[in-house]
């Protein structure tokens, strides 16, 4: 059975305030052709000026991927004609990418195969094209294309991995990890639906001739396309046919890849140094400064969280969700216990949010309040069950938890006299079950506990209840 060899080329849209070479604001979903100027429309006479923030973001990603940051870099013109490319060339990088020779570490638990390092060949900067919207006019029986130049000149990073990935699952894990790094650095939304992350894959069998598949716009598409392409290449080989060096396109609807142009007749991009921009001299001190100000990255975060006693899958989930991780750390800062915090944050909080279709930022819940809730449980003021009820309310109300406990009557009853009274009532009301218990049907303990909880509206201290219940059932014998 041949093994697939996979390499990914990921295009990342940076989340800067303005575009790569002009001052036009970046805004997803703005009215078409309203975020444009002479530069990004390529009007005659306009010139590019590099956005320094985009450059710094690239350096940050390069460092996060353990890359070498080149002290001297340059932009090149990549020449080709297409309506969405207003200058007739794309300003990109060619033989001097800003960052190269790094790696990304896949987490241990996300895939069965255990963790591995995936080589990063290069990270370079380039500008995005305009967006084409193709359509057809039924009235005139002709096709048409509309162009939205809001996207023209948006800064992009191209991240090229080494062909180190060996399964569609690994490719998927790589993308998830890369997105986590981008979000942790805060340089991209990493949102595939909005096109902030676009992926081309290269796949071959046992490092033979590769095919490139373009136009993959979701994690699912990446996995499905790789699975399909692996199958297709295997079948060709079985039939004794060679795999062709070609570019293929993923047809989402049909779930197949279809051939595009073959690489032999590929366009000659006639790269040459962009004379409108000065070569980049990257000051080592600047790189060091960016390095020092890097936030905790997913790789390190996973390790730290695991060392706090979190389950590896919890550590990974938090590391992949920088907002959640920050929330988690915030709760820990005010004294919340790590394991319980992770438990609640990833369990109950997510369940309720998911059911309500909301995000954490949209609720009044803060790390301090979650910590307070956990403390109330720990101190026995409320039961764990009461805690869940309280959390529901805390996600919509911004009243302090202690106040809510009172208002909702959630305080746990830990008075042994009261609990004993409920227990005695319950036994008296169910003589048959109490008899069966005494004859050895110990499972009925839960039945009596349930009866008492009903009476106490769920507020009876469960540990106390358990003890008193056993005592009373024995005593009636």
């Amino acid at each position, binding site marked *: 059975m041949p093994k697939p060899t996979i390499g990914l080329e990921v295009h990342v849209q940076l989340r800067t305030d303005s575009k790569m070479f002009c001052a036009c604001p970046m805004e997803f979903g703005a009215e078409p052709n309203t975020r444009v100027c*002479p530069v990004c*429309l*390529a*009007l*005659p*006479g*306009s*010139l*590019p*000026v*590099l956005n320094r923030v985009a450059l710094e973001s690239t350096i940050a990603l390069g460092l996060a991927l353990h890359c070498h940051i080149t002290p001297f870099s340059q932009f090149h*013109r990549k*020449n080709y*004609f297409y*309506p969405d490319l*207003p*200058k*007739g*060339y794309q300003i990109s990088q060619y033989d001097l990418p800003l960052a190269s020779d790094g790696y990304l570490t896949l987490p241990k638990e996300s895939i069965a195969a255990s963790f591995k390092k995936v080589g990063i060949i290069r990270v370079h900067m380039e500008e995005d094209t305009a967006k084409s919207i193709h359509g057809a006019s039924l009235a005139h029986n002709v096709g048409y294309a509309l*162009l939205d130049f809001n996207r023209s000149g948006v800064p992009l990073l191209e991240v090229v991995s080494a062909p180190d990935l060996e399964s569609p699952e690994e490719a998927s894990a790589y993308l998830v990890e890369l997105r986590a790094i981008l979000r942790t650095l805060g340089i991209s939304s990493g949102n595939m639906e909005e096109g902030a992350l676009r992926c081309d894959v290269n796949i071959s069998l046992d490092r033979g001739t590769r095919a490139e598949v373009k136009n993959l716009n979701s994690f699912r598409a990446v996995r499905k396309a790789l699975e399909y392409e692996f199958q297709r290449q295997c079948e060709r080989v079985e039939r004794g046919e060679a795999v062709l060096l070609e570019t293929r396109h993923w047809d989402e609807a049909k779930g197949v890849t279809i051939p595009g142009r073959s690489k032999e007749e590929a366009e*000659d991009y*006639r*790269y*040459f140094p962009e*004379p*409108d*921009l*000065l070569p980049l001299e990257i000051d080592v001190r600047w790189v060091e400064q960016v390095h020092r100000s890097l936030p905790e990255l997913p790789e390190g975060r996973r390790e730290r969280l695991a060392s706090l006693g979190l389950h590896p899958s919890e550590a990974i989930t938090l590391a992949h969700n920088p907002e959640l991780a920050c929330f988690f750390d915030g709760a820990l800062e005010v004294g919340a216990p790590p394991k319980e915090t992770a438990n609640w944050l990833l369990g109950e909080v997510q369940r309720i949010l998911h059911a309500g279709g909301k995000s954490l930022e949209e609720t009044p819940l803060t790390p301090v309040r979650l910590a307070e809730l956990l403390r109330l449980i720990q101190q026995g003021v409320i039961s764990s069950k009461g805690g869940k009820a309280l959390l529901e309310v805390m996600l919509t109300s911004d009243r302090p938890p202690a106040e809510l406990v009172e208002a909702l009557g959630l305080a746990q009853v830990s008075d042994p006299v009261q609990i004993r009274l409920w227990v005695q009532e319950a036994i008296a009301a169910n003589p048959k079950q109490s008899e069966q218990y005494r004859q050895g049907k110990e499972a009925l303990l839960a039945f009596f506990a349930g009866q008492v909880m009903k009476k106490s509206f769920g507020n009876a201290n469960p540990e106390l209840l358990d003890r008193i219940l056993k005592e009373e059932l024995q005593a009636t014998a």
Partner: protein
Amino acid sequence: MPSLECLPSREAKGYQRKRKMINPLLMQPAHRVLPLLRAGEISSVELVRAALDWIAEADPDLGAFLYVAEARAMARAISIDKARHQGEEVGPLAGLPVALKDNMCQRDTPTTCGSRILEGFRSPYDATVVRKLEEAGAVILGKCNMDEFAMGSSTENSAFQQTRNPWDLERVPGGSSGGSAAAVTAGEVYLSLGSDTGGSIRQPASFCGLPGMKPTYGRVSRYGLVAFASSLDQIGAFARNIPDLALAMQTISGHDSLDSTSLPEAVPDYLGALQREPGALRVGVAKDQLALEGLSPSVRQIFEEAIAKLAGLGFLLEEVTLPHASYGLPTYYLIAPAECSANLARFDGIRYGLREEGRDLFDQYCRTRRQGFGAEVRRRIMVGTYALSAGYREAFYLKAQKVRTLIRQDFTEAFKRVDLIALPTTPTVAFRFGERTEDPLSMYMADLFTIPISLAGLPALSLPIDWIPPEEGEGPPMPVGMQLVGPAMAETRVLQAAYCYEKSSGLHDLIPSFVNDRKGLRFDPQQCSQIWGQI
């Protein structure tokens, strides 16, 4: 004040039409009319009106302008007069008629670059030089003719019209900034801007008997200049004398955050520097350049006389060599086309300009660009595309870049020993229409001496050194220019040396008789305001 001497110039056949007399004020240098404007002796409205009238009169014969912004210029003149009347700060060029080469963008104004592909295009924004001129108070009268996309040395490659040399209307004004040079020579405006990629300011300046300057690469912002070859293009100016030229360069130079290749250094006071003697500057004479094939013997002789004159003025002559400069032409004709092949890719008929519908997208591109671009532009795009193609890139484009470095080093070496280098501007005087259009290489030869300097990105100025009778055939004497080249950022030194020469030669006061039918007329500036009153 010195008076102006009028030399005979030749009317073109079929163009011998009686013109109205020019307002003599229009033939004065800017430095003589600006004080009159400042003193209120004449108004900007009067001056602009006179210039517009003269353009209406002379330009049908001359063809310097592609577009005259009459209403806009008059409105601006009115507002400047008003501002001045109210005692507001109006700028050093306030009220002065000037012109732009038609590859510089001005808001709401046509910018064609002399090409069909941009016919009807109006720029929605101002080039930085336009903003600077307007801030200085200049009144832009219009856009001047040029070789299509600045590719050419005679302005014959304009898709729209010929521009004639005011000294001999049967000859070309040079190019590619031929319209800008002719407009200043013929009294249509006082100053004009041109762009120089391989000699497109210096060569027409030489052909038209004007001073013209290309500054150090990066000294003037290219923002809003439609690109031909980005690593070579520089905006510069034409004027009637060196102080005017210094004033124009002062106005347009300086750092611009919109042009990444713009130099950050502050602009020195060029005009102030002209008041000082440059001292005993060492002037390098490149004997190997003078031996180049193609340099006309009579031009060489005039150049050598000028060199001798420089020595007489106290300059120290030194022999220098520029061993790689003779490779300038082939180097330039790889690098410039390579860059233009990308720069002109945006003219695709998608967003603006000409669009020729086709069967499909590819066909539409082909038709649009075949219809829109002239033969020379298409030739250079093809040469450039070829030079950058896989398999040829190393042999052509990259090799040319290496030679460019060697040429630059030649100048660096030479400037270790001298302060300036003097060269002829052009191998010959202005040629006749059609003389070189059939043979592109003979046309390219017109930039033999200007191209190496462009490749090195150095400041250079051409100034008239004499008028000589044409070598063959009959006709009036034609101007010959000399180039003074400085090290990077040495504009001040170049201007000082040129001014020194100009003061001693007095040639700047010559005007072509084209501007007036009364041969040998002498303008007396003392009487300017009186004459004004009579008209």
